[in-house]
């Protein structure tokens, strides 16, 4: 379709809408559950549910085959970040055994213009990303653990999400909803 780039692309959504929606979701959760730990866990669970579905979309759109090793996996996740969030993270901090690595994001569209107030210092605002990674990889039979190491909202330079490979899932387990 040849349209002028100034026309609204009906398939894409303004990124501010995503940022504001996510922010409103987190703010509402905080009001509903007073505990920041619970909110962080819920965000991770939300991310998990998104991840198990996003992986299908990703595989359908890119048509990639099996990953040969964890580095391949990291590269694929990197291109998924670019596809869905529009940011390119750096893959870094590989552990000595080669089973842990980090994504370093220096800009995160989910946290644009967000400032954490003091009483929510323990909130892991980007936990949804950890959940997405965990959910998506579980659907391709990789059990991983992912958590946030650095967070721009808490004053760090950039946001770092660390992923650790636990094991390969041999049985085809149906994705259980938590």
């Amino acid at each position, binding site marked *: 379709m040849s349209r002028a780039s100034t026309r609204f692309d009906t398939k894409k959504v303004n990124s501010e809408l995503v940022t504001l929606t996510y922010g409103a979701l987190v703010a509402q959760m905080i009001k509903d559950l007073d505990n920041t730990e619970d909110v962080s866990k819920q965000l991770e669970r939300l991310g998990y549910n998104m991840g198990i579905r996003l992986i299908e979309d990703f595989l359908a759109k890119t048509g990639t085959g099996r990953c040969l090793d964890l580095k391949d996996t990291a590269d694929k996740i990197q291109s998924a970040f670019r596809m869905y969030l529009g940011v390119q993270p750096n893959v870094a901090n590989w552990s000595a055994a080669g089973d842990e690595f980090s994504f370093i994001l220096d800009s995160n569209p989910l946290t644009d213009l*967000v400032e954490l107030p003091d009483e929510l210092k323990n909130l892991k605002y980007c936990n949804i990303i950890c959940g997405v990674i965990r959910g998506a990889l579980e659907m391709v039979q990789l059990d991983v653990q992912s958590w946030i190491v650095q967070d721009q909202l808490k004053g760090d330079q950039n946001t770092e999400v660390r992923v650790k490979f636990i094991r390969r899932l041999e049985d085809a387990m149906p994705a259980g909803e938590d």
Partner: protein
Amino acid sequence: MAVCVAIIGKDNSPKYFCCLNPDEELGFQYKVLSSLDVVEEKLNTTNKGTNDLRELYLGMLYSLETHKIYGYVTNTKIKFIIVVDSTNMALRDNEIRSMFRKLHSEYADIVCNPFYIPGDAICSKSFDVNVKNIMTGTV
């Protein structure tokens, strides 16, 4: 440059106040709050029938011997007030307008923070820093 900036909400309660010189804060608060009367007057006289969309900038509200006070109102009735030192080089109208535009854009950014409830006082540190930059003209 500007010596004082204030943001007043639509119910005329102060949302944010910042002075470069902390000693004169009380005096400036008084001047700003009394200039709100002028703002109300301007809003009432220009709103006869058609809503004046172009004029968010209200111009100079008040002129004292040492200071000049300028006002700007958004469509959501949030008022921005800037107090400028008269002894400073005469700031052109354009510069004041651009200061207000920057302030408005900073305010819009702060309102997008999901943890800010519109109607509360603004206590964000980065907003503070940005406003001080606008006031001293370093942005």
